[in-house]
């Protein structure tokens, strides 16, 4: 340990050490709490195709509705909700499902392998799965 140079200056140095430790403790705790408990956007739409994530959109931050063209499918993104506006698949189940928001069943277009789901990471009582 490098404490051999302790001498008359030991008091202010101790003070400094306490400050550094306290600061480290506060920062570490803050970071921990941030990662564990603070929700990163309560209502995030995740759009993927062929199992690959293409878009991740915080629906609470959408101020004006817009569409995303995925080729065979057009996704409508609105404040707080997302839906499949159109699709070139035969049964149009995905379009018929309408808007989804927090806690809903994901929208799936099987023929085009598109999936839109809502994630609400960070919320304490989060839904782990949906049956239906």
């Amino acid at each position, binding site marked *: *340990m490098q*404490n051999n140079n*302790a001498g008359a200056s*030991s008091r202010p*140095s*101790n003070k400094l*050490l*306490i400050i*550094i*430790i306290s600061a*480290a*403790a506060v920062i*570490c*705790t803050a*970071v*921990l709490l941030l*990662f*564990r408990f603070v929700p990163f956007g309560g209502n995030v739409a995740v759009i*993927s195709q*062929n*199992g690959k994530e293409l878009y991740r959109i915080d629906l609470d931050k959408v101020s004006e509705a817009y569409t995303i063209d995925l080729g065979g499918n057009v996704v409508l993104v609105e404040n707080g*909700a997302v*839906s499949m506006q159109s699709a070139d698949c*035969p*049964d149009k*189940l995905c379009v018929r*499902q*309408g*808007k*989804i*928001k927090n*806690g*809903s*069943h*994901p*929208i*799936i277009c*099987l023929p085009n*392998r598109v*999936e839109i789901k809502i994630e609400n990471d960070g919320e304490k*009582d*989060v*839904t*782990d*799965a*949906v*049956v*239906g």
Partner: protein
Amino acid sequence: MRKKLFRAATLFICHLLLLSLFSCGEDVKNTKTVFAMDTVMTLTAYGKDTSAALDTAAKTIRELDKKLSYSGKESEVYKLNSSGGKPVKADDDLLTPLKVSLDVSEKSGGALDVTVFPVVKAWGFISKEYTVPTDNKLASLLKNVDWSSVKISEDSVSVPENAEIDLGAVAKGYASERAAETLISKGVKSAVISLGGNVRTVGTKPDGSKWNVAVVDPTEPGTKTVGTLKLGETSVVTSGGYQRYFEKNGKRYHHIIDPKTGRPAESGLISVTVVCDDGTYADALSTALFVLGLDKAMEYYREYGGFEAVFITDDKKITVTDGLVSAFTVSDDSGFEYAK
């Protein structure tokens, strides 16, 4: 003094570092999406190093998809259907789901029937070219619908020449069970397998609490849920007419065919959610109980047990079996209420 302080500080910082490491480790979430069995499946496992286990589980599911599909070169079901009535050698992947189906068929008086497949095809639920079959057509197809005509021996199965089976009502449940086995054998302690509405959980959440499984509102499946189940390691499967249907001349025809009538079941139930430790049974039961209707389903529950259920009737009433009363919570704004 300073030495002590320094030691304390080092310890404290190490402690924090360890804590943050651990908290990250247990919360690492790996997911894998699989397109199989006519649906999208999401496998989620918690903990570091779980992604290889997920890959193996996904492989298991894909193999089962080929084996248990009604068509395709590698399909055991197709081989059986085209065997001309002769016994066909079968392994556990065919025998187990088939045995479960036949057991539920027997106990439910034929409310689930693997031989109803030609009728399901006639409605267009397989080709997605939907039509309403004529009464004559249905009557002639129903002649060959009889689950008891399927004979099972130790390692073989036979299906009469004029009959055709399909394991659509149990394949996903069986696949979820096999996927869970795979994950557990690879050391996964915490996972959720979601196969297009069939859910199989492994262990508990990483923090030891129960899983929250939401049940879809059958009247507004896209946007609302009826309530939430708090569950440990188990299987949950919902059957409902809203899951697949078509409309013709203003009438809605759903995909759960009553093997007695050859028509979409009209039992007063709009969804049945079964919770059962065995995913194959959960899958088979949800279909059978939907066809039976609330009263007969409750009779089945009292007589055989082995599962719990949430029934939703077309008057927006919820009936929950005794074992789920404390696990189920109705959503505040659902508009559904408990039946008296």
